[in-house]
C-alpha cells in the first residue's frame, strides 16, 4: 500500500508540472496584462507600466515566468519555508488571499460532495431495487432534469426565490392546510417506496407517514415551532430509538435479536447522555470542534463496548450496527442544539436566516453555535445548487451498477444458499455495486469544483472561485495559478482516496 501511494505521488507530481505549465501558458496568452494601463491617461502611465512589468516579470518569456512561479510554489510543499505564490496585480500576496478563500470553498465542496454521494447512492440503490415502480420513474425523471439544469440559472433562482420568499415567510412562519396535505402526500409516497414490501405493508406505511407528516406540520405551525425550533428530549428519544431499529434492520435483519438489543441499548445510552451533553456543549466555554470530536470518539468507544457485550454470536455485525447507531444518535443531539440556536441567531441577523451573499455574515459576533449556524445558513443554497447535478449522476450510476449486480451469478448463488433477501442485497449486492461508483467519484469531483466557481460568483462568496474569475478577466496569472494549484492538489488527493476506497472494496486489485 505504501509503495502504491508513493508511486502515485511521484506520477501525480509530474502530471501537476505539466498541467500547471499548460494553464500558466494559456492564462498568460489569454490577453494583454497591460491592457488596462495602456488606456490609462494619467501622467505617470509609463512608470506604472514599468513597475508592473518588473513585478510580474513581463519582460521575460513565458516559460521563464513559469519557472519563477513554480519555484515559488514549490516552497509551499516544504514545511518551514514561506509559500511564495506571487502577487496579484493589485499587490496583494496570493497566499494570503488564498488562506481565507480556501476554507470557504472547501466547506462548500466538501458539503456538496458528501451530500451528493450519500443521497445519490442511497436513492440510486433504492431505485434499482424498485425498478419500474413509480418511485423509480420519478427519480429517473428528476435525474434527467437535474442533468439538464444550468447551475448558474439554478443558483440565481435559489438566491432570488428562496432567499427572498423563504425569508419573508419566516417572519410569520405558518404552514397552511393545503401545503401540509401536499407535503404529507409526498412524504407518504417516499416512505412507501423506501420501506417497500407487500402492497398491504406499503399502504400501511403510507398511511402512517401521511398522518404523521400532516399532523407534525400542522402542530409545528400552530405552536410556532419554527420560531423556536428544538427537538426536545422526547423527540430525541423517539428518533434515536427509531434509528436504532432501522440500523439493526438494515445491517443484520430484525430477526437477529442480539443486534437489535445492542442498538437499542446504544440509543438509550445516548438518550440518557443528552441530559449531560447538551448543556455542556451549549456552554460557550466548552463548545468547540475538538470537544465535539472527543465526544464522538467516546460515543464510538461506548458503542463498540455495548456491541461486543451484547452481540452474542454476531459480535462483528453488532459492533458495526451500534457504532452507526451511536453516530446517528449523536447527530440527532447536535441537530437539537443547532435548532435551539436558530432563534438567538435569527435575532442577530434580523430574521433573515437564509443568507444569499458571502460565506458568513460580516462582523459577526456570537457564540460558537451561532457562528457555525451562520456558516451553515450561508452554505445551504450554494450547496444545493452544486449538488443537484452530482446527485443525479451518482443516483443514475449506482442504479445501473446495482441493477447489473442484481443480475450477477453470485447473487443467485447467495439466494440458493437460503439467505434472506435483505442479506443478499445488503451483504452481497451492495458492496459489489459500490465498486464502480468510486471511479465516478474521481470524475465528479472536478465537475463539482467547476460548479463551485459558478456558485461562488452568484452568491458572492469570497472563495477561490472568485479569485479565478477576477484573475482571469484581468489577465492576472498569479491568483489564477493559486486557485489552480489548490484545485489540482485536492483533485489528486481525492483521486487517491477514491483509488484506496476501490482497493478496499475489491480484493481483486489489491495484489497488483
Amino acid at each position: 500500500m505504501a509503495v502504491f501511494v508513493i508511486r502515485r505521488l511521484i506520477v501525480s507530481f509530474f502530471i501537476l508540472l505539466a498541467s500547471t505549465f499548460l494553464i500558466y501558458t494559456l492564462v498568460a496568452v489569454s490577453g494583454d496584462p497591460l491592457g488596462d494601463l495602456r488606456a490609462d491617461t494619467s501622467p505617470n502611465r509609463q512608470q506604472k507600466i514599468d513597475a508592473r512589468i518588473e513585478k510580474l516579470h513581463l519582460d521575460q518569456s513565458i516559460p521563464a515566468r513559469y519557472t519563477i512561479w513554480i519555484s515559488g510554489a514549490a516552497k509551499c510543499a516544504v514545511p518551514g519555508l514561506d509559500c511564495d505564490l506571487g502577487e496579484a496585480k493589485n499587490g496583494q500576496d496570493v497566499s494570503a488571499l488564498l488562506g481565507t478563500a480556501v476554507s470557504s470553498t472547501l466547506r462548500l465542496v466538501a458539503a456538496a460532495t458528501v451530500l451528493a454521494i450519500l443521497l445519490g447512492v442511497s436513492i440510486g440503490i433504492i431505485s434499482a431495487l424498485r425498478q419500474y415502480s413509480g418511485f423509480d420513474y420519478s427519480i429517473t425523471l428528476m435525474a434527467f432534469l437535474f442533468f439538464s439544469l444550468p447551475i448558474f440559472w439554478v443558483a440565481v433562482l435559489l438566491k432570488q426565490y428562496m432567499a427572498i420568499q423563504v425569508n419573508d415567510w419566516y417572519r410569520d412562519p405558518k404552514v397552511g392546510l393545503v401545503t401540509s396535505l401536499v407535503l404529507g402526500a409526498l412524504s407518504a409516497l417516499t416512505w412507501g417506496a423506501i420501506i417497500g414490501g407487500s402492497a398491504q405493508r406499503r399502504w400501511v406505511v403510507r398511511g402512517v407517514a401521511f398522518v404523521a407528516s400532516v399532523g407534525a406540520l400542522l402542530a409545528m405551525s400552530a405552536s410556532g415551532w419554527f420560531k423556536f425550533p428544538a427537538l426536545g428530549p422526547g423527540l430525541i428519544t423517539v428518533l434515536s430509538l427509531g434509528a436504532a431499529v432501522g440500523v439493526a434492520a438494515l445491517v443484520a435483519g430484525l430477526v437477529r435479536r442480539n443486534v437489535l438489543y445492542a442498538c437499542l441499548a446504544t440509543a438509550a445510552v445516548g438518550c440518557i447522555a443528552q441530559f449531560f451533553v447538551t448543556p455542556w456543549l451549549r456552554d460557550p466555554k466548552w463548545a468547540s470542534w475538538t470537544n465535539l470530536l472527543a465526544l464522538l470518539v467516546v460515543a464510538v468507544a461506548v458503542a463498540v463496548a455495548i456491541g461486543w457485550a451484547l452481540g452474542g454470536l454476531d459480535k462483528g455485525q453488532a459492533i458495526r450496527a451500534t457504532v452507526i447507531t451511536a453516530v446517528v444518535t449523536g447527530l440527532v443531539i447536535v441537530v437539537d442544539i443547532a435548532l435551539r440556536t436558530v432563534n438567538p441567531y435569527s435575532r442577530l441577523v434580523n430574521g433573515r436566516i437564509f443568507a444569499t451573499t458571502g460565506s458568513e455574515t460580516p462582523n459577526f459576533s456570537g457564540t460558537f453555535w451561532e457562528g457555525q449556524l451562520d456558516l451553515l445558513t450561508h452554505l445551504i443554497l450554494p450547496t444545493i445548487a452544486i449538488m443537484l447535478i452530482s446527485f443525479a449522476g451518482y443516483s443514475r450510476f449506482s442504479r445501473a451498477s446495482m441493477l447489473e449486480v442484481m443480475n450477477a451469478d453470485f447473487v443467485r448463488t447467495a439466494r440458493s444458499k437460503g439467505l434472506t433477501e435483505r442479506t443478499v442485497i445488503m451483504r452481497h449486492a451492495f458492496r459489489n455495486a459500490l465498486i464502480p461508483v468510486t471511479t465516478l467519484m474521481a470524475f465528479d469531483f472536478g465537475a463539482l469544483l467547476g460548479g463551485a466557481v459558478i456558485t461562488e460568483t452568484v452568491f458572492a462568496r469570497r472563495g477561490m472561485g472568485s479569485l479565478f474569475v477576477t484573475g482571469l478577466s484581468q489577465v492576472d496569472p498569479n491568483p489564477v495559478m493559486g486557485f489552480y494549484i489548490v484545485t489540482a492538489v485536492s483533485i489528486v488527493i481525492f483521486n487517491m482516496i477514491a483509488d484506496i476506497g476501490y482497493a478496499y472494496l475489491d480484493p481483486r486489485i489489491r495484489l497488483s
Partner: protein
Amino acid sequence: MTTLPPQPITPEPGLPGTVPPDPVSGAPQGGGGVEREFTIRAMTQRQLVTRRFLRHRGAMIGLAVFVVVLVLANSAIGIFGLPGWWGESYQTTGEVVAGGRMTLDLLPSFADGDGVALGNHPFGQDNVGRDYFALTMRGAQISIVISLLVGLIATTLGVVVGALSGYFRGWVEGVLMRITDVFLTIPLLLIAAVVGKISGGGPVTLAFVLGLLVWVQLARLVRGEFLSLREKEFVEAARAMGASSARIIFRHILPNALGTIIVNATLTIAGAILLETALSFLSFGVQPPDTSLGRLISDYQQAFQTRPWLFWWPGVFIIAIALSVNFIGDGLRDAFDPKQTRVRA
C-alpha cells in the same frame, strides 16, 4: 404403422439440415420441411435499433422538442442571411414600451378578456428596448450551433484518436493516456474559461476551441471500446482471413462501437450547451455584440424581482434543449443496448 425399409447410403448435395426425399415414396422425410420451426422474423441490426429507438417515448418527445426549438429559432430570425419571419430584430435598440413587459398572452378571451395574442414583444424587451424574443431566439440559435459543432469536432477527434490508440496501442495510446491524465486534474470549466477568453468570443471559434477540449473524454471511451472489441473472435477471424488493419477497423470494429459513440456524442452535445452557457454567464464565452442564453441570464439576474420573464425565458430554453438532447441520448442508449432479463432453459 408403416415401417420404412433401410435406406441406401447415397451422398446428397445440398444445404446441411435439409432432408433428402425418400427414394421409395418420393415424399420428403422429416415431414413438413425444416421451415416450420423458424417462427422468428429476422431483422438487421439497423432495423432493430431503429425500431427500438422509435418506440422510446422519451426519446421521441425529446426529438420533437428539439426539432421545434431548432426550427423556431432558425426560422424566426433567419439563418445564413436568409430572413426570418419574425419582424423585430435582436439588434435594433429602441424605446422601452410599458416597462418591457411581455406581450404574450396565452389565456383565451373567456379567461381574462384579452384573447390569445403574441403582441409586439411576446417575451418583453431588454433594458435598451431590444426585442427579447428575438434575443432569446438568437441565443438559442447560437447555443445550438455551438453545441452541434462541439459535438462534431469532439466526436471526430475522439473517434480517430480513440480508435488508433485502442487498436494500435503504441505511442498513440501513450500520448492519449498522458493527455487524459493531465486533463483529469483540470476542471473542465476552468480550462474552458481560459481558452474561451483566448478565443475572443466569436461563436464558431469558441465552438472550435471547446471541441478541442472535450474530445479527450470521448477518446478514452472509444479507446476502451476498441480495446475490448479487438480481442473478440470475429476480429481474430478477420485477421486470419487476411484482412488489413484498416478493413478490420472500419468494417468490423467501428460498426460495433457505433452504439457507444453515438450515445456519447449526444451526451457531449448536451454537455456542450451547458458548458457554453455557463461560460457566457461568466463572460468568458460568447461576447457582445453576439448574444447567448447564458449572457442574457447573466445580464438580467438582478431583474428577477421586477421583470422575472427576462430571467425565465432563456433558462427555459436552455433546459428544453439540454433535456431533449438528453432524452434522445437515453433513447439511443436503450436502442443500442436494451436491458433484457436473461432466461436460460
